[in-house]
Structure formats: structure tokens, C-alpha cells
């Protein structure tokens, strides 16, 4: 099964690149492949000019410090038998950054950053709410002073009122620490809010890549259009005006993807060519890339 197939993109330093798509489109696989939680079966990954694709675990260690990850499920991603100190401090230990008292001081500082208290340091994950756990996950990611953070659906499991807290915090940290984010989510309105550029994925490939505002203002790929029109808008007047494109059927299985364009089975614009040739991602000007024969 090719979860991600022949996808190329770059993220600039200090940028937030949003990756959106429905379940099974390969967005999480992409994030996990970049930090080499999965091994690449074809293609290359460069961090700051260094090729990470075939690097040994040992050589990879210093690069792992520069890339961290925040996971979707704040319940599953924290070890229930470890205290907050152990969780947040593990990276500091592995990368040998601080020892003993300095390490503890750094952990307190990190807890402070993410809005937790010093007395939380000796507690276990089950003593915290979902939002607080996600803060612990963020403190863990920040502990080794990374440059790139892969945020894999960091807010999907949280309540609406807590989501905004976490998003604001991630934005603040990006400004203060000059962080680069790969922000993976299925909630398009939040992705638009936080991202500079966005890539829309469908069945393991990019359908469209563009600057955030450009993508929402002038979506070109029929899948992007359908996806955008499907977002329920919390404004009944706009909802009534919104001309919705309802897609037929479901996403095909990635084990046996359709020939040609992968969106052809559900596309309202489908033509003969679409079922024969896979469209390339072509620059339509100003960094707006679209993979479609018909636009």
C-alpha cells in the first residue's frame, strides 16, 4: 500500500505549512515519514540541506533533536507510568542537554511556558484534562529546543474553547522561538487560520498547494473546492448562500487506487484523460500549484 506516493514539497524556515485532507489521505504518514518514524521507500528528505533519507539511527540523533512532534491524542501519546518531569525531561536526558538541577529548572521553565504549574511536575498524565495533557506534549516537544515541529492534529481531540488556547500558544511560541511548523489537520478552518501555505492531499498525493489565503479565495482543484464547500460554517446566513458541491461516494482504497487521477472516481469535471494519465502538480503562477487536467 502506498500511503504517500511521489510527493514533493518544501517548508521555509519560520513558516507554517498546513497539510489537510480526509482520513486515509496520507497526511499523518507524511509527517511521520519526515521525522523518520517510518522509513522512506522512495524519494529523499532534506533538513536544512542534509539528506536524512538513509541516515543511520546514530547519525540521525542530532537531527532528531532539531525535529519534534506533537501528537493528536493527548491520552495515548503520554506514558501513563511516567511523571510530567520524566515525560518532559526525557528528551533533555537523551540529548544530554542539562543534568540534575539544571534539568529540573529547565522542566519548571517549560511547564511555566505552556501554562502549567511547578507543582504539576510530579503528577501523572491521568491527573490532567485533555487540554492540559496537550500542554505537556507541547512542553516535551519544546524541551530540546527544536527548529521544526510536526503538529499532527494537535487540537482535534480537544473541546472548542480549549482549541483556541492551544492554537494561540503555538502561534506565540513560533514568534518567540522562530519555530517552523508542519501543521497536519482535517479541520480546514483552523488550518487556514494558522498556516502560511497549505497542501491539500488526496489518496497519498497533492491535489493543490498554495498560500493559505490564495487557496481559500481561489481554490482551483475540484477536490479543494468540494472540501471547502463542505465545511459547515457557523453562520446560518452564509450557509444558505454557500453553494455546496456534494461529492459522490467515498474515498477509494489506497491499496488499489484508481488509474490516472486519483480523484477521477468522484470528480464532477472528470474527462477521458483523467482516467488515463496522472496529472502533474503544475505551477499556475505565484506559487499556486494544481494537479488537474481540467483547470
Amino acid at each position: 500500500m502506498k500511503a504517500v506516493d511521489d510527493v514533493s514539497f518544501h517548508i521555509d524556515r519560520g513558516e507554517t505549512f498546513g497539510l489537510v485532507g480526509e482520513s486515509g489521505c496520507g497526511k499523518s504518514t507524511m509527517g511521520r515519514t519526515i521525522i523518520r518514524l517510518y522509513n522512506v521507500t522512495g524519494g529523499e528528505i532534506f533538513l536544512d540541506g542534509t539528506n536524512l533519507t538513509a541516515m543511520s539511527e546514530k547519525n540521525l540523533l542530532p537531527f532528531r533533536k532539531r525535529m519534534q512532534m506533537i501528537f493528536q491524542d493527548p491520552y495515548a501519546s503520554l506514558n501513563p507510568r511516567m511523571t510530567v518531569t520524566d515525560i518532559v525531561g526525557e528528551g533533555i536526558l537523551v540529548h544530554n542537554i542539562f543534568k540534575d538541577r539544571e534539568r529540573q529548572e529547565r522542566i519548571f521553565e517549560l511547564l511555566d511556558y505552556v501554562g502549567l504549574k511547578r507543582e504539576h511536575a510530579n503528577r501523572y498524565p491521568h491527573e490532567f484534562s485533555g487540554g492540559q495533557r496537550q500542554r505537556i506534549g507541547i512542553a516535551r516537544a519544546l524541551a530540546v529546543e527544536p527548529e521544526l515541529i510536526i503538529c499532527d492534529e494537535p487540537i482535534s481531540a480537544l473541546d472548542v474553547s480549549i482549541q483556541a488556547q492551544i492554537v494561540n500558544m503555538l502561534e506565540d511560541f513560533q514568534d518567540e522561538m522562530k519555530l517552523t511548523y508542519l501543521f497536519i489537520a482535517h479541520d480546514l478552518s483552523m488550518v487556514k487560520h494558522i498556516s502560511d501555505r497549505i497542501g491539500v492531499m488526496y489518496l497519498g498525493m497533492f491535489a493543490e498547494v498554495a498560500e493559505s489565503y490564495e487557496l481559500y479565495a481561489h481554490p482551483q482543484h475540484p477536490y479543494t473546492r468540494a472540501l471547502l464547500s463542505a465545511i459547515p460554517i457557523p453562520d446560518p446566513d452564509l450557509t444558505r448562500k454557500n453553494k455546496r458541491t456534494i461529492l459522490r461516494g467515498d474515498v477509494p482504497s489506497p491499496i488499489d487506487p484508481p488509474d490516472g487521477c486519483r480523484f477521477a472516481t468522484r470528480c464532477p469535471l472528470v474527462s477521458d484523460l483523467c482516467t488515463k494519465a496522472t496529472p502533474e502538480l503544475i505551477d499556475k503562477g505565484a506559487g499556486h500549484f494544481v494537479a488537474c487536467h481540467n483547470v
Partner: protein
Amino acid sequence: MSGEPLLEVKNISTSFFSHLGEIQAVRGVSFYLNRGDVLGIVGESGSGKSVTALSIMGLIEKPGKIKQGEIIFNGEDLMKKSQREMCELRGNEISMIFQDPMTSLNPVYRIENQMVEVIRYHNRNLSRKKAVAQAVEMLRLVKIPEPEKQIKSYPHEFSGGMRQRVMIATALSSNPGLLIADEPTTALDVTIQAQILDLMNDLRARINASIILITHDLGVIAEVCSRIIVMYGGTIMEAGNERDIFYNPQNPYTVGLHQSIPSNLAISEKRLVPIRGTPPNLMYPPKGCPFSPRCSYTMRICLEEAAPTIRLSDTHISVCWLLHENAPKINGYSKGKIVDRYKTPSGS
């Protein structure tokens, strides 16, 4: 549709008596639903919206208990009915669909068997052949392609969206007076969610179903609901029609919810305005208003006494001290008359 409302919920409280203590999941909730209406209940996890629905269905099991209140459906008090009578009612007159369509369907039986079982349970004189024909018609109604063939499938052969269609078809097969949908689209992708919401709007028009839709997503509410209840900490915070809740919210919690989500069309350079803090622990709910520890306008009385229900218009009520005539005037918030929350149905 005039006359008696289809459903009246009067001051119900439901608690769960765990070893840790009493979790007061629903605390004095009252509302009503007219025939043909689609009522949305919106709230975050732990707001009591699902427990309210389960209380109506009579599905609260030990250690849970409905402590007080009345649930009047079609003129009858459901609280006075026996377990057996409730069994007859459930699926026949009130149906419910749940968030996760996979766990709601039995993986080892074909769709046909599961639908026919429900149809014949509620109509025992029906032959199997006729029940199958009815099931096929229901699948056609929810737009499953080739229903005669698809009905032979097992649940795992269907995608999440298709399974939710099967659940809706099964729930509607007895032509219930009331359909309760608890987060029916939360587990689905947006394009599939759009299909299901489209279907619900279509069904609402075609079979004049009365629906209670429970969700955490104000966007979903905006798509299908004509009346809306906002819940928080086990209580109703605000109730009104679509215009009231979306364009003239009169409760700081509702306003906070709106400000927490990025608006869809504006260029969102604007920072989000989160609600600080976390929802209350319902084992020890705040003494006064449940939102008082997180509210920007908290007054002393908010911490000490439960807020009064204040009527702002024929359709709109809000449970908040800020709207009381003795409270300071805050921009954007109006004043209204205190009404008895148990006698006056919330909403229209």
C-alpha cells in the same frame, strides 16, 4: 404545527453515583420540542448534552439515576413508564442514532438481518419478505446505491458514511415521532459529513421528522437546526432560534464559543479569543453559575447563586446574571425579565 408540543422536558437532573462521588451530569434542564422542529443541543464534552438525550430515551443505567423531573412525550410522562413499556417506545416512537456507526452495528450479521429484526420487532405481523422490502425502501430513502444488492452486505463492507446511512434508515424504519441524533457526523470526514447533513435536511422536508441533534459543532447546528439550546456544566445557558444564537448571543459562554472558532471567510489574521480555564468538574460543580470561574464578567452574585432565567424575546432566553436589571450595563448584552425556568419552556 400548533397545540401540544411533542416533547416536554421539565427540570430533569441526572447523576452518576460513582465510588469517587456523585457526578451531577445534568442539573435542572427544561425545554420542549414542537412537531416537525429540528432542535440543536450544542455544548462541549461534559456539558450534559448526551446524558440529557439518554435520559429522554430511558437509557440511564446504574450507577446513573434520573433524580428528578418529568419527560412528557405525546402527552405521557416517560418517567412513569415501566422498563417494558419503554422498550416498546424506543425504536418505535423515539429512535436514536449515535456517533460511532461501527459500534452501533453488529459486525457478524448482514445489514438485512439487522434492519429486518428492528422492523419486525416493532411490527410483529409483518412477514419477513415484506420487512425486507421495507428495509430496501428505507435504504433507498437514505440514498444507498443499489439497495437490493447492498442490503446483503456486512457492516465492515461499508464505509463510515454508508454505515451512518444504514443507522439512519434503521432508526427511521418504524416511522418514529422523534429522532435523536447524538453527534451523527462527528466521526465522519467533512465531505461525508456534508452528504449526511444534506440527507438529514432532505429527510426533514420529506417525512416531517422531529429531530433533536446533539453536537459540539456550531457549524453543524447552522446547517440544520431551527431552534438551539446551548449547554454548559450540566445546565442550559441559552436557548433561542437561529438568529438569536448566531447573531445576538446573550450569554458570555455562547459569545466565547463563537470567538473560539476562526471565522471561515474573513482573512483570519485576527487572533482567536479563547475561553480561559477549563470546564467544571461535575462532582463539585461551582455553587453559582457553572461558567462563573471562566467568565470575563463574573460578579459576586455569579459565584454565590445560580443565575436566573431571563427572557429577552418570545424566542430567546439566557441564564445569566448579567442580564438582570441590577447588573451593570455591558455593551452587547441586553436586559430582560426573570421568568420561572421550570414553568416557561426554554426557546420559542
